[in-house]
């Protein structure tokens, strides 16, 4: 049965067989889902110019015929795109980084409230990448707020063990800061972090996404923040993102600073 037309954001497109494509979508009604677009590589009428990453679509999807099977993408119409993400390699890399996080971590069959929240986050994050300075600071802040949107919000203000303060370091395994007293009982793995770094990251979690680029984070604080967020992500996600290496290469490479 074909469902009514709904919104979707294209996270990934994979060629399949001679003429089909498998499209990974983020939808505001069901979270992440994969659908097969039959004949998409050949047809110029059913999916014209639509099945590309970053594209915001209205789609019609036929339900899965059997459990575990793929849903079938029947039609797609372009609602919006993020042209600024295609005309700058660093923005493109950051946008793909956001998409990969969502593609690998967003839940399937999500509760509609969570699905709507994630969909709104995805669109706002891509809009931010399109207009804000694309640099190492934006990468760290985006990764942090993406983890938060996906349900991995670190505790950056109060001790995760006793609720007290002030923080003496960040305990990656427990996803938050610990106070001086509790830190004495920690066997290992305590990451020393400056109060300024914690304040900046905590501020990032409170700011509306559209204003994230106003946050100041530079020098040793940025390096510390990068270390904290990267270790948090590695420990709790348990996977290496493929776009991570690309971002390292492009933020430090010959075209860096062109954004």
């Amino acid at each position, binding site marked *: 049965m074909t469902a009514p037309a709904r919104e979707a954001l294209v996270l990934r497109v994979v060629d399949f067989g001679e003429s089909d494509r498998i499209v990974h979508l983020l939808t505001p009604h069901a979270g992440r889902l994969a659908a097969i677009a039959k004949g998409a590589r050949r047809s110029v009428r059913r999916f014209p110019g639509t099945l590309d990453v970053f594209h915001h679509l209205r789609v019609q999807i036929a339900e899965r015929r059997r459990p575990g099977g793929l849903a079938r993408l029947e039609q797609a119409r*372009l609602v919006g795109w993020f042209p600024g993400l295609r005309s700058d390699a660093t923005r493109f890399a950051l946008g793909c980084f956001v998409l990969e996080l969502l593609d690998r971590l967003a839940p399937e069959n999500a509760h509609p409230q969570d699905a709507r929240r994630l969909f709104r986050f995805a669109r706002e994050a891509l809009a931010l990448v399109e207009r804000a300075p694309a640099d190492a600071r934006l990468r760290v802040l985006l990764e942090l707020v993406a983890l938060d949107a996906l349900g991995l919000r670190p505790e950056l203000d109060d001790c995760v063990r006793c609720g007290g303060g002030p923080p003496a370091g960040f305990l990656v395994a427990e996803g938050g800061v610990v106070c001086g007293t509790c830190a004495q009982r920690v066997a290992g793995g305590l990451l020393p972090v400056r109060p300024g770094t914690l304040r900046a990251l905590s501020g990032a979690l409170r700011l509306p996404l559209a204003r994230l680029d106003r946050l100041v984070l530079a020098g040793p604080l940025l390096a510390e923040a990068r270390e904290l967020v990267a270790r948090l992500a590695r420990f709790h996600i348990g996977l290496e993102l493929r776009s991570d290496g690309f971002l390292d290469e492009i933020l430090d490479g010959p075209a860096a600073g062109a954004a």
Partner: protein
Amino acid sequence: MRSAPPIERLVANLKRLPGIGEKSATRLAFHLLGSAENQVQELADAIARVKKDIVLCEVCFDLTDRSPCEICRAPDRDTATICVVEEPADLAAVEGTGGFKGRYHVLGGALSPIDGIGPEALRIRELEARVAPGEVREVILATNPNAEGDATAHYLADRLRPSGVRLTRIAYGMPLGGDLEYADHVTIGRSLANRSELE
């Protein structure tokens, strides 16, 4: 019903080819069984030789049986213009138009962070080395008009701009035989932006 093991093995191998499913593979296998011995041998030889004899051109990185390839050796091709494409199949498509008389550079893909393909995985340094001596006046960026292809074209433009070479991008627009009613608004918008005078 089970077939004899040699037939099953052939079907299993044919099924690995793109676009070939169980039914097509079985049909092809029985077609080969019914073919003359010399035809089957010729096909087997052709498959074996294509892997053995084909190499990458040391200049443009197209597939060839002799490096440099025919296009890179041809004295009548314009050495001042390089058309950059993602894959050998794209080169064949441009060459098939018969309208381009310059040389090519095959990147070997496009930037794709989600697939872990970064600048170092593409033949970008080789392109820079070809442009550096100063003989090349124009580089046509003919990567695919999708997000990866566009981002790759802009990345290449950033890398090549210091050389002073003219950088152009293939045009976006309506396909021949297309239908405005079925085109997406981005394509129509770009077609309007890139409109040209009627001659």
